[in-house]
């Protein structure tokens, strides 16, 4: 079963919810190796998206939702995460195109486009201790799952669980991009806040897919 506009809207609502629930946690992670604003920034951004969902017209597609998220995050989040997530959602929207229903392969394509957008803007490589370290394993896992015939839910579940592993795996790393890189060796031993928020968002996508499959 493909994922449609209902899923996309549900994903955004769940994203806003988890980011709000984990606001303090993300702030704390960012305080340790950054400047303590990541949770606040993400929360401000997703809270700004919520009311705009009501403006979606009748025939809106998942791509329209992704674009709405992209433009809102760009204009409300700020910091490094704003343009990076903004570009991710923008590229994802382009990849989603006009499709009204997304299967496993489409989901893998969308995640790949999102990750590529982050890399395009931020120039981070895997292992630099950034959100890329959550997205790259997520993309790989979703792509592999889709190739194995997984549906959209399966692809998102694979992505989410790989993102969590990726986020956890940032802990021992020494940062080479973003604010944490200023700390040098002292950045090791802490989880990257952007990788954590990425895992939260991908988990929200999977949860929304599960709910939509259950419905």
């Amino acid at each position, binding site marked *: 079963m493909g994922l449609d506009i209902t899923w996309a809207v549900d994903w955004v609502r769940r994203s806003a919810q988890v980011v709000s629930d984990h606001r303090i946690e993300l702030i704390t992670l960012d305080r340790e190796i950054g400047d303590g604003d990541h949770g606040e920034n993400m929360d401000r951004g997703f809270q700004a998206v919520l009311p705009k969902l009501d403006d979606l017209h009748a025939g809106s597609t998942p791509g329209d939702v992704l674009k709405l998220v992209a433009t809102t995050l*760009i*204009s409300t989040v700020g910091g490094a*995460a*704003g343009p990076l997530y903004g570009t991710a959602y923008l590229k994802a929207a382009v990849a989603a195109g006009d499709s009204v229903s997304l299967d496993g392969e489409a989901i893998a394509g969308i995640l790949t486009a999102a990750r590529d957008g982050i890399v395009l803007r*931020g120039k981070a490589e895997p292992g630099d201790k950034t959100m890329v370290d959550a997205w790259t394993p997520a993309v790989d896992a979703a792509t592999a799952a889709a190739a194995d015939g997984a549906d959209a839910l399966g692809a998102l579940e694979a992505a989410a669980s790989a993102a969590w592993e990726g986020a956890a795996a940032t802990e021992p790393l020494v940062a080479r991009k973003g*604010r944490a890189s*200023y*700390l040098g060796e002292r950045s090791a031993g802490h989880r990257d806040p952007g990788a954590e928020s990425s895992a939260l968002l991908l988990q929200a996508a999977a949860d929304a897919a599960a709910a939509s499959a259950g419905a």
Partner: protein
Amino acid sequence: MSVKKIINDPKRVVEESVAGFAAAHADLVRVETDPIHVVRADAPIAGKVGIVSGGGSGHEPLHAGFVGFGMLDAAVPGAVFTSPTPDPILAATKAVDGGAGVLHIVKNYTGDVLNFETAADLASVDGIDVRAVVTNDDVAVKDSLYTAGRRGVGGTVLVEKIAGAAAERGDSLDEVAEVAERVNANARSMGLALTPCIVPHAGEESFTLAEDEIEIGIGIHGEPGRERIKLEPADGLVDRLLAPILEDLPFESGDRVLLFVNGMGGSPLVELYIAYRRAAEVLGERGIEIARSLVGNYITSLEMQGMSITLLKLDDEMVELWDAPVQTAALRWGR
């Protein structure tokens, strides 16, 4: 309310503070609130290059305090310690474009660079000629492939003053950008913190330090530095900041410099002058001439106690532009 600050709603800190700034300095600036940006009262000035800077709030007087005659045409304050989004940067860019193009002065942080980049792209679509100068004078950070590059810190203030004077005398966008680049290339800074700061919405100290510990090599975002050491007497602290600064450019005997001792916001002036005294002594011993000085809280990290030292190697043009009249809330002379 757990955060001990003179604030109302932590989420409205920037909005309310900018409103107060606008009311206090209505002769110098006007403030637009949606999206928030601070514009020189008489902008745009036809034929003059517009200069826009911006970044997270919490570094006051940077940048809004430097909007006015001879310095910035607009400042774009983001949320506390968070780069502004492209919208207000774009709005500010449009507001100050007098047809001669607009210079963006951007501190080198991933977020600032990306958001200013997007705004510049959007502005060019509107036919505005935009150039960006990215300041990166902080020697505490290794400028290598393995970091996000050096941060823009104290040198930014000097770039804004000198580029502002160049624009005021009618230099072209290329010329203003060139002198801004030159100032940045000749400025080196390093800072330390005795205490952390508290971001209003975070409500906790940005890092924790024992009673006898300090952070060397901090930036301006309340982020920890490169190294944590035991507190030392002021002279030793100054020497620790100056050594890497001096060897980096390098600064040499016979050089003429501007010595800028900057407070991080919470250190009393009396301490900054004690630091200045030692810095002047060290430069004197090395045969480096202090031609100009600046001492005070100009680029801060909220209530953080600490200081940074910036050295700028001067040439004649820089001295002339430094001395040119400036009339802003935080830096003013000659009118």
